[in-house]
């Protein structure tokens, strides 16, 4: 007679898989953030033009939509994730350079960096320790994202500074919601690939940082 309880065994295996997913995701996220920061440093040093930054964003989005879903379950997925985050870091260089050339720019960049880290750590810690299920937010967050994108499209033509600030604030709140949603998917099931989770969390952090830079830069003015 087997002494193993299949329910308990199944549950502990699932817990082990969840812990491994969380550990791998955060390890990969730390590596990609360091890599991305290094690429941003290279772009700043080379004084990469703004147009190049937009091209890098197009490239990274193409990789996210067309290449990552096909390679996420293979070793090529690792290279894809580093290519995506490297390109996004490269694209960030001109933006950071712009803020660094403002009066008190170094304070703005360091505050945005620290603020982004604090928001991410606090929300992730909350979702991980409480193990709450935030899956109900999915539809709301996607609709919010579409509304923000439409407003951004409109603001490209009208160029209203107040709307630009409001959109940055909305992006920070949306991405904060996505951090809760993504972390909860890791803890409660719904996500099983650490490469896809790494890119999702990386995009949340990236967008919070850029929006916070925009808000802090505008408030300095």
């Amino acid at each position, binding site marked *: 007679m087997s002494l193993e309880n299949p329910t308990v065994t199944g549950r502990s295996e699932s817990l082990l898989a969840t812990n491994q997913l969380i550990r791998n995701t955060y390890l990969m996220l730390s590596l990609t953030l360091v890599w991305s920061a290094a690429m941003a440093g290279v772009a700043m040093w080379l004084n990469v033009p*703004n*147009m190049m930054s*937009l091209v890098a*964003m*197009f490239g990274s*989005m193409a990789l996210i*939509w067309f290449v990552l879903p096909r390679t996420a379950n293979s070793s090529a997925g690792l290279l894809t994730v580093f290519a995506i985050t490297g390109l996004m870091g490269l694209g960030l260089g001109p933006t950071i350079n712009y803020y660094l050339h403002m009066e*008190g720019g170094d*304070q*703005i960049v360091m*505050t*945005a960096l620290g*603020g982004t880290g*604090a*928001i991410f750590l*606090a*929300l992730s810690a*909350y979702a991980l320790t409480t193990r*709450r299920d*935030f*899956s*109900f*937010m*999915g*539809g*709301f*967050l*996607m*609709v919010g*994202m*579409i509304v923000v*994108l*439409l407003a*951004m*499209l409109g603001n*490209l*033509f009208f160029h209203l500074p107040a709307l630009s600030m409001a959109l940055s*604030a909305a992006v*920070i*709140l949306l991405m*904060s*919601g996505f951090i*809760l949603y993504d972390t909860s998917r890791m803890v409660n099931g719904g996500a099983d690939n650490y490469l896809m989770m790494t890119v999702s969390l990386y995009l949340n952090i990236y967008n919070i940082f850029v929006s*916070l830079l925009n*808000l*802090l830069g505008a*408030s*300095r003015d």
Partner: protein
Amino acid sequence: MDWMKIMSAIFIVVMLVFLWPRAGQMLRESRKGSGSEWLVVVLLLLGVAGFVAFLMHGVSAKPI
């Protein structure tokens, strides 16, 4: 209008084209949250908003 604006507009439109079907799918498949679940989210986001306001105040404050 300069090239940067045109490229940015194309970028946003492409993102919208890709996100639109996914948003519809997530709206259909997401479970409904209870009032207390939404309250937790609202409180957390208010905390984030307060923290961002604090950072903005810190950056905009002139040194004495």
